[in-house]
């Protein structure tokens, strides 16, 4: 300390030496009580924080010291729910308003002795016992009079006495049937029936259903006596109906079933649990399936966008697309998109379909086009060269395909199917589209699987054939019409000089026949081709039929009948496709 003072002196600092000792003093003062001074001194200045528990009476919280102690006193009370006026005592907080605070202890003693009478007079009369309100009884019907009983309630099964007994029990046990049935013990008065003494009467055992049936009958009758059903309120009427409709037999059957249910064996219980589990599994599976299906459809029905796909045709572009989709999915907190079936449809929403046609003009025609697989499928055959040869069945199952030639980049099968519907001319395209619409086949396929695409391809081919055939038929028809018109003209001219013109006429007719014949045979040749392209087994037969018909038509050489026959011919060829297309042809003809 002195050294410090010297230093201060030397440095001309003010003598501030008091601060340190005072601080030390403070620390010493803070010393907790559970520790000796010597021990505490050993701890040094910066003692670790230690908690020393003192066993001390905690006492009341400080804020409560200001509160005045309120008095409780033993107060007698009566219960209104009782009829005998039993007086019991309980502790009650003394009401501040009723008495002024007692100034001193002796006064208080006097007060407590006086307590006995005073609150009894005031509190019991003024306020009701607060639990008395819970004294409620169940509502039971009014008791019948003798006359009412004799007129309405007589029963072979139930005597008046037993009915009375039942009604008493019901009132006593508040319509708790379990207890009523348990306590029901009706003893017939033997002395009133002397003949019953001779034979010990078999103890009549009433079931709960019998009791209920009787009680409900009585109660419903009493309700009806009080208010005729026409004057009843809605609730009363419902109650009345319910009571009248009580069927003891059904109730007994129900209880038998309940007993059976209760006494099942462990095996039955296990089986039932298993079945329930199975049912739960099935329904949840179905639910899952439906939601997945819905999700898939909603993805398929995304409006066709018309952007450029070229940016997605490189692997880099695809990777980028995948990233953005992943991001989008993450933000949507949906299932991972990485599942194989999720990858294929999701870009479909964004891949443009209409504009890909020029970009892929060089891709081979439909028949020669290599079958594309999904991105996984196209990659799979390359890096794994025949680890295991698959049987054809397995190949179809796993969707393995072999290609003669693979084009670079990614293609969508749906795109290719789409391209088929594009004909060279706009008119033809429209016709194709309308034919498809007639068949209720969407222009954009749902689920363009490989098989679907193949079939679609075939369909489009046959539709094309049909359209061609129709074109030819129309041409022939118009020619016939022209010729007919010419013929009619000539006949009209030749009508006066009919004698020498006959051979000419015949010649012209023959000419016309020949023309019709050749044309018809060409249509007939077309039609079987269309038919055979659909690859239906019955086609050959129908095609033959058609050729026969066509030749018959030609040989018949009756121009007036031709249109009708033509119509029939069209019908036949159309039937190869479907009825729907048949209708469309008829319509288009018209």
């Amino acid at each position, binding site marked *: 300390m002195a050294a410090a003072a010297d230093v201060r002196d030397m440095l001309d600092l003010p003598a501030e030496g008091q601060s340190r000792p005072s601080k030390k003093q403070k620390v010493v003062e803070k010393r907790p009580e559970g520790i000796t001074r010597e021990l505490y001194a050993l701890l040094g200045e910066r003692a670790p924080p230690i908690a020393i528990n003192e066993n001390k009476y905690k006492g009341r919280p400080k804020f*409560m010291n200001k*509160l005045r102690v*309120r008095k409780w006193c033993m107060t007698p009370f009566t*219960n209104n*729910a*009782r009829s*005998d*006026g*039993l*007086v*019991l*005592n*309980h*502790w009650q*907080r003394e009401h501040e308003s009723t008495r002024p605070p007692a100034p001193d202890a002796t006064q208080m003693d006097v007060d407590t002795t006086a307590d006995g009478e005073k609150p009894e007079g005031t509190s019991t009369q003024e306020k009701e*016992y*607060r*639990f*008395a309100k*819970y*004294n409620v009884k169940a509502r039971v019907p009014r008791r019948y009079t003798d006359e009412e009983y004799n007129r309405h309630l007589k029963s072979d099964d139930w005597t008046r006495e037993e009915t009375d007994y039942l009604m008493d029990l019901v009132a*006593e*046990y508040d319509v*708790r*049937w*379990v*207890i009523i*049935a*348990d*306590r029901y013990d009706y003893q017939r008065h033997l002395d009133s029936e002397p003949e019953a003494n001779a034979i010990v009467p078999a103890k009549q055992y009433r079931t*709960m259903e019998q009791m209920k049936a009787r009680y409900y009958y009585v109660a419903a009758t009493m309700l009806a006596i009080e208010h005729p059903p026409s004057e009843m309120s809605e609730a009363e009427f419902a109650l009345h109906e319910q009571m009248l409709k009580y069927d003891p037999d059904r109730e007994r059957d129900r*209880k038998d079933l*309940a*007993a059976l*249910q*209760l*006494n*099942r*064996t*462990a095996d*039955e*219980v*296990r089986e039932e649990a298993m079945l329930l589990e199975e049912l739960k599994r099935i329904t949840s599976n179905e639910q899952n399936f439906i939601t997945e299906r819905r999700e898939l459809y909603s993805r398929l029905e995304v409006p066709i966008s018309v952007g450029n796909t070229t940016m997605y045709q490189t692997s880099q572009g695809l990777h980028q697309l995948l990233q953005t989709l992943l991001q989008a999915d993450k933000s949507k907190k949906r299932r991972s998109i990485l599942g194989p079936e999720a990858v294929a449809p999701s870009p479909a929403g964004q891949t443009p379909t209409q504009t890909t046609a020029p970009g892929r003009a060089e891709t081979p025609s439909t028949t020669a086009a290599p079958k594309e697989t999904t991105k996984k499928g196209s990659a799979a055959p390359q890096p794994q060269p025949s680890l295991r040869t698959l049987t054809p069945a397995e190949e179809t199952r796993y969707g393995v395909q072999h290609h003669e030639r693979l084009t670079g980049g990614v293609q969508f099968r749906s795109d290719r199917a789409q391209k088929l519907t594009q004909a060279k001319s706009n008119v033809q395209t429209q016709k194709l589209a309308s034919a498809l619409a007639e068949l209720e086949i969407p222009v954009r396929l749902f689920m363009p699987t490989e098989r679907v695409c193949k079939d679609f391809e075939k369909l489009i081919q046959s539709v094309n054939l049909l359209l061609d055939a129709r074109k030819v038929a129309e041409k022939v028809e118009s020619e016939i019409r022209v010729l007919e018109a010419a013929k009619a003209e000539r006949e009209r001219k030749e009508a006066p000089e009919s004698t020498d013109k006959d051979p000419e006429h015949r010649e012209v007719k023959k000419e016309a026949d020949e023309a019709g014949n050749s044309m018809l045979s060409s249509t007939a040749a077309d039609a079987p081709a269309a038919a055979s392209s659909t690859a239906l087994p019955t086609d050959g037969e129908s095609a033959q039929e058609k050729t026969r018909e066509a030749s018959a038509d030609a040989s018949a050489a009756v121009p007036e009948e031709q249109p009708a026959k033509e119509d029939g011919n069209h019908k036949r060829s159309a039937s190869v496709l479907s009825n729907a297309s048949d209708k469309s042809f008829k319509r288009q003809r018209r």
Partner: protein
Amino acid sequence: MNPSNPPQTAEYGGDEVSAIVLDPGYSTTRAGFAGEDAPKSLISTYYGKYTADGQERLLYGDDIYVNPHPGFSVHNPMGRDGIVEDWDMAEKVWEYSITSRLTTAKPGNPFQNGLNDIPAEELPTEMEVETDEKPLADSPLLMTESAWNPAKAREKTIEIAMEKWGTPAFYLARSGVLAAFASGKASGLVVDIGASNISITPVHDGMILKRGIQHSPLGGDYVSSQIRALFKKNSPQPITVTPHYLVNSKSPVEAGQPPQAKYRTFPADKAPDASWRALLEERTLSEFKECVVQVWPGPNKLSAASPTGAPNEEVARSSPGRPFEFPDGYNQVFGVDRFRVVESLFDAKAAIADPDSPFPAPTQAQTIPELIKASLGGVDVDIRPHLLNNVVVTGGSSLMYGFTDRLNHELQQLYPGPRVRISAPGNTAERRFGSWIGGSILASLGTFHQMWISKKEYEEHGANIVEKRCK
């Protein structure tokens, strides 16, 4: 919460009127103030009798265990079926249980209260109740009874309470109902495993269903008799139970070795009665029950095979035994035998035969599963699943290790369909004093106070009123 505020009536429907709850059992009598969580006064129902100076003396409570007076005999006023047999003594024992701890003697005239007398002779240990002072003059009394208590016994009970004890209000409640209340249920199937009886009581809406009541004598005392039978047949040597008071000193011995102890002997004229020895042996046996005896927890009977195929006995044998040292120093490890002594509560065939036992061999109908089956058969089918869902286990003997597990398994085997749920308080006191606690709850409810039979009503209608009011 500020403790100085009274609880709201909505949250707690209590209104205490300083009622006394008395729950007399065969082994112990419980008494205490309503609203408390355990009985203040717990005494043995046995009372001791001896003759000193040509005068018959009676001892109650804990005093009966202490001094081996010459010819000291113990008796029980209750019958084995839980119905009072000796009404005079039952009244005295019950009164002792109330007056010894709960009601203090009113300060009398100091000239006469005995404190200022010169003690000419030793004052009798028992509490002398002044005849003019009724012990219960200002406390309503709630008593419990067994579900099969006959009407005569009930009338006698209210007579004692009203006329001898002068209680202002009285109620007689069924112990089964109260045990259900103690576990917070108004309906349930109460399985009470007492000292002299086991009983099954179906309770619906706070009322017993009389047709479903079942009881059988396979209680704690029966288990004691089974233990004695086991000791007789013990393999190295039969075990004799020597109570503590007969052992002066002992030295430790190896397990299974004969005891080395110095015994206290009484001359024939000074020896206490055999019943007293039996009582003290019973204390050792209850210690044995607490420490060693175990109920085979199931799933099947001890004699049957477990679900895995191995016989249960083998499984039980492979579990480590439990050692027990008797008062004379003899000690032994009890293996599978500790399961056998209680097995007959569930499987009558497993009973250890003992011709000297006061208990006849149990029938299958007396076992707990059969009792429960019979009990449920007596109630309406609609409430059976509900009862099975609310099985309340109470009674001191139900504290045997593994009892509730076994009961659960047995019930699930009997009724695989409905859900079986057993509610057994883990707290020992709550299990032992289940019906007392229920009574304590009931008697402190504000809504209950309209149910009391008041003195006035008793005087008007006579003792028969108990039949009408306490249903």
